[in-house]
């Protein structure tokens, strides 16, 4: 295959990626957009096997190894993506992003070993960039995975002199990067990779649980940029285009997500440096709460005129999306006005609730976004909060200095009655106490969301 044809097909793949991102930006074209992207990526991968790089010949060297490695990747990647629970998708995306960053760093290291002293200064600089950012993306994503999978604490990890350690690590990363550019050599590059991995860990540890999706998005953009830099070193226009597209769109997306949560990007990433450790609401203090039975809830609902359902991560965990729809349909059949109040970042990722409720075929027009539903809480008789916590916590409006301060919330505190379906009194993902739980107009229904809702449905049917 000639270089021209090879480049033309690469260009077509680049166009496919633009169309993919464009398609993914609109609900109706999203799925097609994703398929176009997959087509472009498949095409780009296929064509590499038919073009001999300068100094090489067809078939590719080590062809068996290459195909075997792809097969291993398929065997790991496809089942993981197919079998993952809806609740675990965010961490899977984090993991996929991490391995992408790791792949980019490895490619850069191999190319560096290969070029040896023949590498131009520009190539070495791009290699250093890819190794640093790829490693940060890799180790940072692993930490976000551990946080989301709750294999480690979801709270900000702040250690003494943390900010100095992080700053010192960053300075050493840059210093060793300069050393690689000047002195060349394998050892400096490996030291650089090690330090960058460490920096990725330190960079993500202080980020609070609720901000993790923003960090994943940012690391995603980072990985994009490493791919673009690899494109320069490997003389591949396609990699430059694809990487830059992801880097740019990922940056915008990160900003949009931060806006949806009412956070400045800077605050999210560096908030933990300035925040003092929380004195977790006088921990351990026992305060009275009002808990109710499913029958109490059913009676309250039966005489309501307007009910707003606020779903959160607990709904996803309990897989209660079908049951909640059953309850909503039942209430509607009784002439009650029902809406779902969707917080943009309820769950573990923006849009998480929309995806979940769409799975249960909840009609789109019953889903109300935050700006739409907030002014109506004053006329709402009952707000049912199902496994959500931080997104309805009034502390975000009233307690300056708490980790979620400034985040827009669903103002369920304005509703006449509030019902919380909770597993326990454990605070939400951000680890902050919710005053609303102790409010006299709040009733708590403890237990698994699905089991509780099923009981409420049968109690309401019996009325």
């Amino acid at each position: 295959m000639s270089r021209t044809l090879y480049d033309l097909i690469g260009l077509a793949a680049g166009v496919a990626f633009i169309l993919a991102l464009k398609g993914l930006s609109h609900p109706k074209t999203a799925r097609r957009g994703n398929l176009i992207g997959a087509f472009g990526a498949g095409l780009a991968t296929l064509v590499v096997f038919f073009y001999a790089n300068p100094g090489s010949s067809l078939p590719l060297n080590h062809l068996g190894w290459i195909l075997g490695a792809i097969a291993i990747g398929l065997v790991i990647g496809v089942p993981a993506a197919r079998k993952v629970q809806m609740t675990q998708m965010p961490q899977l995306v984090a993991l996929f992003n991490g391995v992408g960053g790791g792949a980019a760093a490895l490619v850069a290291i191999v190319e560096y070993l290969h070029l040896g002293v023949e590498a131009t200064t520009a190539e070495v600089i791009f290699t250093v960039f890819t190794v640093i950012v790829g490693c940060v993306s890799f180790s940072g994503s692993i930490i976000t995975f551990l946080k989301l999978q709750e294999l480690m604490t979801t709270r900000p990890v702040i250690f003494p002199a943390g900010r100095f350690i992080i700053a010192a690590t960053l300075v050493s990363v840059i210093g060793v990067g300069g050393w690689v550019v000047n002195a060349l050599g394998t050892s400096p590059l490996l030291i650089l990779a090690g330090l960058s991995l460490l920096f990725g860990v330190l960079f993500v540890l202080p980020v609070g649980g609720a901000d993790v999706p923003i960090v994943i998005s940012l690391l995603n953009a980072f990985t994009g940029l490493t791919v673009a830099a690899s494109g320069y070193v490997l003389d591949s226009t396609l990699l430059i285009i694809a990487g830059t597209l992801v880097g740019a769109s990922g940056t915008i997306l990160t900003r949009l997500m931060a806006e949806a949560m009412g956070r400045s990007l800077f605050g999210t990433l560096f908030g933990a440096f300035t925040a003092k450790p929380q004195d977790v609401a006088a921990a351990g203090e026992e305060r009275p709460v009002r808990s109710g039975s499913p029958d109490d809830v059913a009676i309250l609902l039966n005489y309501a005129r307007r009910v707003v359902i606020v779903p959160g991560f607990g709904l996803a965990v309990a897989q209660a999306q079908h049951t909640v729809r059953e309850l909503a349909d039942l209430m509607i059949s009784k002439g009650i006005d029902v809406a779902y109040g969707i917080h943009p970042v309820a769950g573990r990722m923006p849009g998480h609730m929309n995806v979940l409720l769409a799975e249960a075929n909840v009609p789109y027009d019953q889903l109300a976004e935050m700006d739409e539903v907030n002014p109506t809480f004053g006329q709402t008789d009952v707000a049912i909060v199902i496994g959500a916590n931080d997104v309805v916590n009034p502390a975000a409006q009233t307690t300056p200095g708490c980790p979620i301060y400034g985040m827009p919330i669903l103002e369920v505190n304005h509703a006449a009655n509030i019902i919380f379906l909770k597993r326990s009194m454990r605070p939400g993902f951000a680890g902050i106490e919710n005053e609303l739980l102790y409010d006299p107009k709040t009733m708590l229904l403890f237990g698994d969301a699905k089991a509780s809702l099923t009981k409420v449905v049968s109690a309401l049917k019996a009325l």
Partner: protein
Amino acid sequence: MEPMAILSIFVLAVFVGFEVVSKVSSTLHTPLMSGANAIHGVILVGAIIVADHSETNLELGLSIAAIILATINMVGGFVVTDRMLEMFKGNKK
């Protein structure tokens, strides 16, 4: 390639990237992030190129690892995005 040509491609791609996603409802933030994530899996192309011209066992070993990781990123990314978007079907008004 000419440095100026590369710079032009880079700058134009930055603006295209900004433009295509500038107005996205929060509903689609997660699938969009996941789709973009899958797209950077094309680093697989780079991994295959370096595997092809690797001369030592170290180079080959590292590039094989890169191919495995990149394949997981690309294929897994597109499959998981499709699964997310599959949930939206039947909801079009």
